């Protein structure tokens, strides 16, 4: 015994590039799959969600205006940072889910690969989802996909890192900003992922991460008038109906996915802009 006191990490929220505690002052215990205490996490309230949306809204025009190349580079940078901390993330996943060391390391590598996969899409989206349309008249007519705005994300409960990355990466790559709710039972990986994001040149407010209870926050995600889209892949299927109903007021785009590598995950949170351009002589 060295007698040294271990310095424990305080897991906090990630809003606007900073790591604040929840305004509510609440926390909840995160335990391993065997029930041992691991850490206290912030139990975010709807006011933390509100603050995160304000940050995401403010950051959105700047992020969407960055070139596709630049957005791709930053996503790739996130992958680089994550790769370098593989062991730490693998260990954290094992502690939370009880997965074997090998399985956890595989989840981290899959997450890195997925980030790189989505990063590559940034400058290919207009070719994939855009078109030149034949119209009767002296016009060029183009349709180009553009970012939707602020998108909420409710990450899956299992696969604390891979599930989280698969939810936020496709939202961010097109120029949306995101407010993401980490896995309620295993949020530590997502909060540690915030440390990776914070050192990856992602502008403040582009990705905001909350930890808390789905049942408490999901309805507020759905009804918030300043959230334009919502990924509910992490919610149990029997709750999808109620959430979609709550999101009707501002015609929120609400989607859920099962596959991780899926261009549809990007396109679900984009909208088409059609431009008519007169043909000169």
């Amino acid at each position, binding site marked *: 015994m060295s007698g040294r006191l271990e310095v424990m990490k305080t897991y906090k929220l990630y809003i606007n590039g900073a790591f604040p505690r929840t305004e509510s002052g609440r926390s909840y215990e995160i335990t391993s799959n065997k029930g041992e205490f691991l850490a206290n996490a912030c139990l975010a309230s709807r006011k933390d969600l509100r603050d995160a949306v304000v940050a995401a809204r403010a950051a959105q025009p700047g992020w969407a205006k960055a070139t596709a190349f630049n957005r791709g580079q930053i996503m790739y940078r996130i992958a680089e940072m994550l790769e370098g901390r593989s062991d730490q993330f693998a260990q954290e996943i094992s502690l939370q889910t009880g997965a074997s060391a090998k399985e956890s390391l595989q989840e981290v590598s899959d997450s890195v690969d997925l980030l790189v996969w989505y990063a590559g899409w940034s400058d290919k989206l207009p070719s994939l989802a855009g078109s030149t349309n034949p119209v009767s008249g002296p016009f060029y007519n183009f349709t180009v996909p553009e970012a939707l705005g602020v998108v909420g994300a409710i990450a899956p409960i299992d696969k604390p890192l891979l599930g989280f990355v698969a939810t936020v990466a496709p939202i961010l790559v097109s120029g949306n900003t995101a407010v993401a709710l980490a896995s309620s039972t295993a949020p530590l990986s997502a909060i540690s992922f915030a440390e990776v994001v914070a050192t990856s040149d992602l502008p403040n407010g582009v990705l905001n991460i909350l930890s808390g209870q789905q049942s408490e926050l999901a309805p507020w995600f759905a009804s918030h008038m300043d959230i334009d889209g919502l990924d509910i892949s992490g919610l149990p299927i029997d709750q999808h109906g109620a959430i979609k109903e709550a999101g009707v007021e*501002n015609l929120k785009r609400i989607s859920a996915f099962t596959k991780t590598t899926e261009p549809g995950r990007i396109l679900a949170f984009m909208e088409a802009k059609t431009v008519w351009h007169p043909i000169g002589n």
Partner: protein
Amino acid sequence: MSFYGLVDGSDSSLRNYLKQLPGVDQVGAEARAAMLATRSIKTTSKAWAIDTAISMVDLTTLEGADTPGKVQALCSKAFRPDPTDLTVPHVGAVCVYNDMVGIARQHLDSIGALQLPVAAVSTAFPSGRASMAVKLQDTEDAIVAGAAEIDMVIDRGAFLSGRLIEVFEEIVAIREVCGDRAHLKVILETGELVTLDNVRKASYLAMLAGADFIKTSTGKVAPAATAPVVLVMLEAVRDFYDLTKVRIGVKPAGGIRTTKDAIKQLVLVNETAGPEWLNPSLFRIGASALLNDLLMQRMKMSDGYYASPNYVTID
């Protein structure tokens, strides 16, 4: 002029009066303001506070780029802050530059907002650096064009170099121009007065000279309406009422952008000057962006979900 019987209008009496004012305990003022800022106002009280704050807003545009169209749009918004909800009260006043007063007044009359006053910034706003003749004419012009409230700036240079009587006489002269045609708000520009002692002195100086309102700032200088400054000014009007039985209004301006900020101001008013001041005739908030945030908070309270800036106008 009697100046409430407290001074006789001479340099020496003014000096002696201001000199006997007690100094401000700066640490204490900051601590008290910070303590009051922690009050939490919820549900029905919050709904009341939001509507009260809306009715106290002096909706302001003071930009070099102001156009008649922008001023007219501002006036329409002042009268009907939320066109989809007629239960929202109109704001306290519209505050514009001198040359826009006529346009604002005309537009307000044309939409039936006859009771909504136009306030004009005056006396070479925001610096106050012009000759007395210009300042008097500036004020006269605004009143003739239809301003019912004059927001004048004091000469901070004269105040800081100790020529208090100059500042005093200037306010008295503008007060005479206003007569009973217009309310007079005196802008102290507290961000340039350096100390809270000076804020207290300038507040009394303005009140003695005949101000109906004392206002913190032009909005062009930071810091503007900080809580300790507003606290000291509210104490000044409270103590002045005890001396004279006359209630002088207070108008913080600049830097109040969110509903939370506005409600903190209302708490300060209630706890310092008293509930009599929770009234648009005695307390105003000079702001532009604040109104949208108040409206969004009001929507949140009535609809039960968070509002979006997409549903309020762009100023």
